[in-house]
Every structure is written in C-alpha cells, then in structure tokens.
C-alpha cells in the first residue's frame, strides 16, 4: 500500500512537467491545439488580419472566384469572403464563450441544488431538465426564434436554455454520487455547514471534469450558431457568420462552389480542433470521465 502511494505521489509530480511532452506524443491533440490556437488568434487579431471591410458592398466584383485580390473570392454582393470568414470566426467564438460560461454557471448552481437539496427539489429539477432535453434542439430553437425574433442574443439564449440541463444533470449526478462519500459524511460529522460542504468540498471535485466537458461543447455551440445562421434565423445580416456564408453558397451552389467551401472548411477545422483538443485534455487529466456524454 505504501509502495503504490509513494508511487502515485511521484507520478503526480512528474505529470505537470510531462504535459507538454504528452501533447507531442499525441499527434491528434497537437493538431487540435494548433487549430484552436490559430482559430483563437485569428479571432482576437481579426481587425488586423482582414484585408477588406467584411460588410462593404462591391457590386462590380460580385461572385468572383478566388484570386490574388480576394483569396476566397467574393460573394453575391461583392463582399470579400476571406474577411467575412475571419470575422465569422470571431462571432462564433464569442457566442460559444458567452453562452457556455453562462450556461455552465447556471447549470452548476442548479445541479448543486438538485443534488444536495431535498428530494422534492431534485425531482422537480430533473423533470424540468428532462423536459428541456426532450425538445429536439434545432426545432425548439426555431420556435424560440419565431417568438423572440432572430439575433445574436437569441442564439445565445437558445444555447443557454438547451445546455443548462446538460450541465445541471452532470453536476447533480456528481453531487449525488459524492454526497454519501465518507469524506462528505466526515465533514457533516464535524458539524460543517451546507455552504462549506458545497463550496469547499464538493465544488473543487466537480469543477475539473465539468470544465473539460464544457470545452468539448464549444464545437457543438459553434455548430448551432452556424446552423441557425445558415437557416437565416441566427446572426442578422450583414454581420458575417459562417452559417450565412454557407447559406449564400447554398443559393449559388451550381456555379460558385468556393462559397460553400470557404464557409465550411473553417467551421469543420474549428469543430475538429476543439474536439481533438478536448479529447486529448480529457485523456490527460481525467481518463475516467465518461465518453458518452
């Protein structure tokens, strides 16, 4: 017993140091990391990267194929597609970060309440969570859009409403499985109050895996944003979005395939990047985390 413990102690210490070398040994994780770094930095530095104003019209040069002047060509209104793609990435990332962090905080609080609170609160929360989860996401989103009207905030709202139950469920399950652990009973036996148990003892054990799951949800949110914008009910024109670029491309699919290609490739690369990175992070930090959530 001593032997194995000594052993894990050393493994832990060296773990931090070997993090980078692990990435190097995991080519997909490294690939993901590079894609994510590219994506994030292009979103941050967008204003310096874009050669044209992404919403400036230039009717004379509409639907031009890629050239030196417009490396991804122009769309049906003559706007530079490359600039729109870069700005679209910025929007996608913004939507993802805002909505996931809000949903995560709400889900965390609600999940803790459900998991640690009295059984009737738990039952109520579970029914609420399960109800929201039982709406097919996109169809439900379309209903909300019809009611509230399309805008970026609607997209964020839709994502928050549909992801809170996911996080809430996870936090609840973790809390429930942990609240009868001996270390929590030991705290209660010492007279520790509910706030201390929740925030000093439960939260630190839940937050790690949750953050990894949340980071793996970024591609899903980017997909929803692009999807709604593709349907024309997401980000309002003329603000660029990968979804609306794809929509433009769809309308002209028979003669200008580059629009679809340049709207789709960054979307695919981003979702792939975040997914590979998330998988890799999960394998490093928490190999036991369930793979099917």
């Amino acid at each position: 017993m001593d032997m194995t413990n000594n052993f894990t102690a050393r493994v832990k210490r060296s773990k931090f140091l070997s993090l980078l070398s692990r990435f190097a040994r995991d080519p997909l994780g490294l690939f993901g990391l590079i894609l994510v770094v590219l994506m994030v930095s292009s979103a941050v530095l967008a204003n310096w990267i874009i050669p044209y104003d992404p919403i400036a019209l230039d009717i004379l040069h509409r639907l031009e194929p890629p050239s030196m002047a417009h490396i991804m060509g122009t769309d049906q209104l003559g706007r530079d597609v490359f600039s729109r793609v870069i700005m679209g990435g910025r929007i996608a990332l913004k939507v993802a970060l805002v909505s996931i962090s809000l949903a995560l905080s709400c889900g965390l609080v609600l999940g803790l309440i459900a998991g640690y609170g009295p059984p009737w609160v738990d039952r109520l929360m579970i029914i609420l969570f399960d109800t929201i989860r039982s709406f097919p996401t996109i169809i439900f989103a379309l209903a909300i859009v019809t009611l509230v009207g399309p805008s970026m905030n609607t997209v964020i709202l839709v994502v928050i409403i549909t992801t809170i139950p996911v996080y809430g469920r996870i936090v609840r399950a973790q809390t429930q499985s942990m609240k009868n652990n001996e270390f929590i009973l030991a705290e209660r036996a010492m007279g520790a109050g509910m706030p201390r148990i929740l925030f000093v003892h439960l939260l630190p054990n839940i937050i790690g895996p949750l953050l990894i799951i949340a980071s793996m949800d970024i591609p899903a949110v980017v997909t929803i944003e692009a999807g709604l914008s593709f349907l024309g009910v997401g980000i309002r024109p003329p603000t660029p979005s990968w979804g609306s670029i794809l929509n433009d491309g769809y309308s002209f699919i028979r003669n200008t395939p580059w629009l679809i290609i340049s709207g789709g490739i960054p979307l695919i690369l981003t979702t792939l990047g975040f997914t590979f990175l998330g998988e890799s992070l999960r394998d490093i930090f928490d190999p036991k985390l369930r793979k099917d959530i």
Partner: protein
Amino acid sequence: MNALLQVENILIRFRSKNRIQALLDRDRDPFIDAVCGVSLDIQKGETLALVGESGAGKTTLARSIIGLVTPQEGSIRFQGQELCGLSDRAFKPFHRDIAMMFQDPIGCLSPRLTVRYLITEPFKIHKVRNIDVRAEAKRLLEMVGLSESFADRYPHQLSGGQARRVGVARALALSPKLIVADEPTAGLDVSVQGEVLNLLAKLQDETQVSFLIITHNLSIVRHISDRMAIMYLGRFVEQGETGEIFAHPHHPYTKGLLAANPNPDPDKPKDQIELQGEIPSLMTRPGGCEFHTRCPFVQDLCRIDAPPVTEVESEHWISCHYPL
C-alpha cells in the same frame, strides 16, 4: 451513575420501498429496522466495542450518535443532554465534543485539500480564531506520530496507515470527549493496524477520551476495549466486560464469532462450533429468537418466543433462552 453517553432504546428504521411500491404490494409496513431497541452507555475514559457482521446495524447506530441518522424512537444523552431531535444548528456545539472516524482511511479525507487544511478544518468550522494554524497543525501531527512534512501532502499521497493517523489528528483537533471510530483498522495490514490501535490507547491514557469502536475484528477487540456489545440484526445479543465475554461467552452467536476468529495455530482443538447459514435479510426477520435460523443449539421455544434480555452476571447481559 452519570455516564458520558447514554443511549436508550434506540430504534432506527429506513423505508424499504417507496410509497407506490408499498401500496401495490399491500405492504403496510414498508420499513426495515436497522437498529431496534438498543441501549448502551459509555463512561469517561472508557472504550466500548461494538461487534457484529456486516448488516448488523453497527454503522447506523454509530452515525445516529453523531447526528447523521435520526432515530425514530429512543433517546441519546450526552453528558445528560438529549441529542435526539436536535436541529443541525443545535447539534453543532456537540460536534466539538463527539468526533467520528470513518472506515476508509483515505476516502474519508476530502481529496483536494492538504493535510494541513484537513486537520485544522475543525477550528474553522467551529470558529476557533485565536490559534496559529501552522503551530496547531504541527502539534496535532506530532501527537499522532507524523512529521510536519506531511502537512503539505494530499490524501492520495498517503499510505493507509498515515491517512488513518491524519484521521485521528482531525478527530482530536477540538479535544473531544468521545470519539466514535468505525472500523479503525479496516484496510490496514496486520503490521500497521497495531500502530493505529496503540496510538488510540496512548491518546486515551493522555486525554481520558472515551471511545466507541465499531469493528468486525474480534481479535483486536480483546486488546482495545473495556466492554463490548455484540450486535445481530440490529439488536444486542450480548453485552458485558470484554475479558468476561472472551472467557465465558454465553450467547451461541458470540461463541460462533469467537470460533471464526481463530488463533493462528494449526494444532488448536477443532471442537469449536461453526455457525450455519447466513445473516437473514432485515426485510425478512425470523420470528422468535432472531438467531434461531443459524443457532446450533436451537430448541422449539427459540422458534416461537423472542428471548428477554437477562443479566447473567453483574453487568453482563444476554438475550438467549438457553445461555451456554
């Protein structure tokens, strides 16, 4: 007699089926009694051992003393004050005087906190402010025989024996009057369990703390306890002085348990009794004497009537129709 802890006729029941299920099964009594009608007392500086196999209700009884489980009937008095029915807030001061140690030496420590935080946490919980956390941590670690270098470790970096010592330090932090220890040697090798038991004995000599020790390991009970109680299906079948019970067990179950914990000697006599069968489920308690299904000396009366608790010798109670 003014005992430190006095438990009288405690009854703890759990719901065994939810309401709908009970209704469908026409079960008017969808409960199981984990502990039924148990009485005990512990004096200052004394150790009482609670012995029994899994499912006997030992842990439930222990948890009710610390307020984690609420008994349906009976009373638990600590220094004369009633603990049953107290709210969490009203119970809080008693957590200073009654500490509990849990079974799993490593699992009962919050995994993301350092040993220093863990052993000084009782001060934070009970708002003891005028202390130096570092010095206190050092003092407590020394008391349990660990060097100060352990203060910065995390639970998973400790061996079972070390973690158990940290658990003891935590229990000791507020100088309690009673420590309830649930299987203090569980998961420890024989060569290490002695260290932990010696430590508990030393602390008792120094501080006059009382122990309620729960264990299934009879061989340690002989050395660490003054009195012992043997539990079966939520009831005490025998209770008395440890030495007396080891020398003259009167209940067949006690005798069977003793026989199942043999002295490791290949030449010892093999005429001892062997209990048959397994502990019945709490859902289907046998009628009459509840031990009759496994008793090698069962007679007709045992199947019909539950035996009363009788004092066979001074301070030695058993419940058996035909004591050995």
